[in-house]
């Protein structure tokens, strides 16, 4: 890429050809305000807050819409620029309700921030303001046109990223407004991003509205667990309430750019489901009793050992899960395949229709860690059985114990009638999960696992990128991180020589033994993830 040398307020900077004045100024350490400009959307140049002076040009230019030129001198600290910014701020506020105290965007609103920074503190507009009623526009968004500054980001997100014209600009002049076409509801599953990028409180998330002030939230970087894409997200949780209140997009140019889908955005409510499994439960003869971990795991270990002693390790079937982290998958292998010599280790696929938008795809695999599960060894050993075969073998009585690392609907594991029979036939069925399901309803033991927001770990996404999830919530009830459960079980079975205190340490071990992860550490994975070694990709340890 050719580079261009220029000056911004006297500071010299070299930038790539084609860079606009806003980005070039940023690289020179000079802030240029913007409302409508978004690096992921087409440049519209409508808000005019980014007006800059360019030496030698009589008129101010829009920083977002002007590319740099060799030898250019951008001036942002002049009376002319200050006056233009003040003018735009005043114009944007004349019909604005200034209802920050009751606006959900307060605290993270660009208009509010700029008004404090550079806006006029009094309005000279003495007339009645234009007002509009609030509106449910679908897409889990509420539109308050009074606050809209017509930056068109929402319009272009739908048009350009989703590729559907679901939000349009209507009418003209000061009566211009954005709205849905013929009052239809927004249906595209990327619309939630608008709540992230609307610079004001005009389009806000119905889900998050009035839940909390943004400054009450703690934000932690993580990864969406709902499909194999592995979108980078920010988990916003309320420490006092120990509750996640929203998930927003986190920029990662190699994965999801600036966007996430609405499934990922809303995909945290299950964590706070009142039906969560919170204690180990043993079910026998139609009655269920809660059991403390220190009694449950030794009992399960004894029962497993019993099956292995009586029928051999091939009589155990392990239904692993690609919802679990790399570390947990590694432990699954260590405990069952390497420890107990169980050859039957596999995990169920969880396909879904792939949804392709103009510039974003929701992937067809609901497992966030399919790549990692395979690479870390959640795969049948020599002569080992896959998911369906295990279920059939259990229904036929040759497999005597079934260990599910995640439950679910019966059809996830095969023909429901056969799964039903398998679960009835087996003498030991253990299910580790968050919520009750048809599978766990039929188990002898149900153990409480945790969600992606209640543990640390890593996922490997479909393109082979290793990315970190983080524990943000304190564990509820007697729930335990899945890695800890697996490790404790391994200890109870006497198959793990030692226990690691945290997933980071497990990862070090994992990286030492699995070539694809060789050289990776939590530090090198960092906030944005790191690719597995390309040459070893997809070669599972057999």
């Amino acid at each position, binding site marked *: 890429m050719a580079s261009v040398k220029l000056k911004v307020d006297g500071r010299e900077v070299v930038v790539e050809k084609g860079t606009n004045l806003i980005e070039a100024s940023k690289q020179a350490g000079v802030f240029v305000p913007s409302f409508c400009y978004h690096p992921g959307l087409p*440049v*519209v*140049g*409508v*808000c*005019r*807050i980014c*007006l800059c002076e360019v030496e030698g040009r009589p*008129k*101010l230019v*829009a920083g977002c*819409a002007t590319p740099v030129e060799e030898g250019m001198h951008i001036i942002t600290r002049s009376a002319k620029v200050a*006056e*233009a910014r003040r*003018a*735009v701020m*005043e*114009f*944007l506020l*004349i*019909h604005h309700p200034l209802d920050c105290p009751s606006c959900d965007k307060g605290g993270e609103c660009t208009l509010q921030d700029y008004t404090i920074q550079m806006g006029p503190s009094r309005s*000279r*507009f003495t*007339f009645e303001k234009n007002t509009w009623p609030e509106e449910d526009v679908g897409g889990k968004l509420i539109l308050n046109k009074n606050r809209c*500054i*017509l930056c068109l980001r929402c319009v272009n997100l739908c048009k350009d990223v989703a590729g559907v014209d679901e939000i349009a*600009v209507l*009418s*003209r*002049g*000061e*009566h*211009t407004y954005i709205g849905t076409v013929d009052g239809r509801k927004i249906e595209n599953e990327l619309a939630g991003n608008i709540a992230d990028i609307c610079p004001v409180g005009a389009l806000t998330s119905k889900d998050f509205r009035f839940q909390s002030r943004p400054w009450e939230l703690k934000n932690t970087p993580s990864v969406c667990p709902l499909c194999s894409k592995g979108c980078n997200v920010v988990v916003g949780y309320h420490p006092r309430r120990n509750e996640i209140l929203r998930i927003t997009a986190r920029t990662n140019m190699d994965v999801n750019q600036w966007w996430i889908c609405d499934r990922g955005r809303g995909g945290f409510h299950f964590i706070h489901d009142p039906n969560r499994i919170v204690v180990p439960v043993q079910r026998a003869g139609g009655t269920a009793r809660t059991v403390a971990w220190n009694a449950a795991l030794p009992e399960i270990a004894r029962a497993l050992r019993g099956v292995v002693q009586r029928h051999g390790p091939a009589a155990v079937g392990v239904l692993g899960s690609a919802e679990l982290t790399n570390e947990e998958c590694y432990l699954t292998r260590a405990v069952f395949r390497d420890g107990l010599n169980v050859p039957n280790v596999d995990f169920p696929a969880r396909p879904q229709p792939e949804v392709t938008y103009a510039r974003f795809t929701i992937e067809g695999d609901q497992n966030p860690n399919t790549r990692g599960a395979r690479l870390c060894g959640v795969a049948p050993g020599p002569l080992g059985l896959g998911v369906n075969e295990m279920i059939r073998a259990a229904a036929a009585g040759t497999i005597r114990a079934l260990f599910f690392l995640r439950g679910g609907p019966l059809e996830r594991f095969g023909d429901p009638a056969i799964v039903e029979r398998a679960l009835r036939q087996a003498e030991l069925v253990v299910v580790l999960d968050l919520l009750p399901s048809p599978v766990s309803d039929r188990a002898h033991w149900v153990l409480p696992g945790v969600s992606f927001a209640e543990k640390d770990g890593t996922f490997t996404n479909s393109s082979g990128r290793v990315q970190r999830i983080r524990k943000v919530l304190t564990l509820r009830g007697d729930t335990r991180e899945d890695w800890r459960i697996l490790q404790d079980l391994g200890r109870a079975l006497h198959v793990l020589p030692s226990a690691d205190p945290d997933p980071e340490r497990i990862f070090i071990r994992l990286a030492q033994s699995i070539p694809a992860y060789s050289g990776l550490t939590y530090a090198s994975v960092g906030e944005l993830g790191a690719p597995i070694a390309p040459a070893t990709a997809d070669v599972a340890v057999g």
Partner: protein
Amino acid sequence: MTVNGSVLLKTVHLPESHTLAVYRKHGGYEALALALQKQPDEIIDMVKRSGLRGRGGAGFPTGTKWGFVPKATDKPKYMCVNADESEPGAFKDRIICQKDPHQLLEGTLIGSYAIGASRAYVYVRGEFAFEAGRIREAIDEARKAGLIGKNILGSGWSCEVSVYLGAGAYICGEETGLIQSIEGKRGEPRLKPPFPAVVGLFGCPTVVNNVETLACVPHLVSRGWEWFAGIGTERNTGPKLYGLSGHVNRPGIYELPMGTPLRELIESHGGGVPGGRAVKGVIPGGASCPVLRGDEIDVPMDFDSLTRAGSLFGTGTPIVMDDTTCMVRAAWITARFFAHESCGQCTPCREGCGWLERILVKIERGQGEERDLDVLLSVTDQIEGNTICALGDAAAWPARGFAKKYRDEFLQHIREKRCPLGGGSLH
């Protein structure tokens, strides 16, 4: 309405002036035949030398604009005719569309040939349905006569022309708004650069020209650029259609040389103000041009002279206001137009135009305060130069012009808390 002239309006009085037969009888399409024997560059050169400047308002040299169209490109090129004439006061293109559509088509074809376009669109103001029909008929006639379509006049060059009827938005007269509209999009100006000559209609090199501009072209081709350059003043050449309206005895369209003095236009041609009343002010070139006071009308009507006089030539269509006119009301009506026509895209124009209108209504109703006048001027400063297209400027200039030139009258409204002219009149 008086209509007279010797070049552009030569045949408009004749019965059936809009037909091919009448047009041809008076030498029509001879310029096209002549042009097709020349190289496109020769024509561009001729137009440059003629000094023809765009009649759409900005006065940009037409030959220079044509020369901006890149030669080395695989993309198709387009010619767009701007027949959106919607500015209050402007009514000069309409007569050509109505009475002499072949003159427009001939200019369009020569222009298309010069820039290498084989497709031309005539964008007609939505309200000009009758004129659009006339142009369509003319296109059909010309096509049948081998003047439009394949292998025009046996030259090997082909060109299609079609009419696109707008939907009634002034902003679609702005060249990039026009392009958006033809593309079937919302009529909103685009950011410039890139300019249409490089990225225009459907992303391809495009020239947008005013009706009157193109109507000049056949004449300068057949009579020579020297002839054209000999009319008018030095940098403002050729014949011009002046649409005179307002308080004059003989409103109408007068074809006179560029640079005709405004006073001559009003007094000699327009027959002066009815009842012998005084000229209070003149908006010289359509509503966007700052008003001139009655004592400022000794000015030649051309681009450079009016700019020097602190106003603009615009479309060269003066609106005369006599001393019964309330200038606050005139300012308000102007502001209302621009507020109504703002596309609403960019902040200063969208928010500022409505604000100007509100202040002017307030003053006209006798509810104004002195500081409103300061706010008014400050809002015009805040709009000017900060917008995407010139509509923002077009709203700011006249409001500022009225408020500055008739400050006393504005203050009188404020002090007397009423309109001293009883609301005035503006026909």
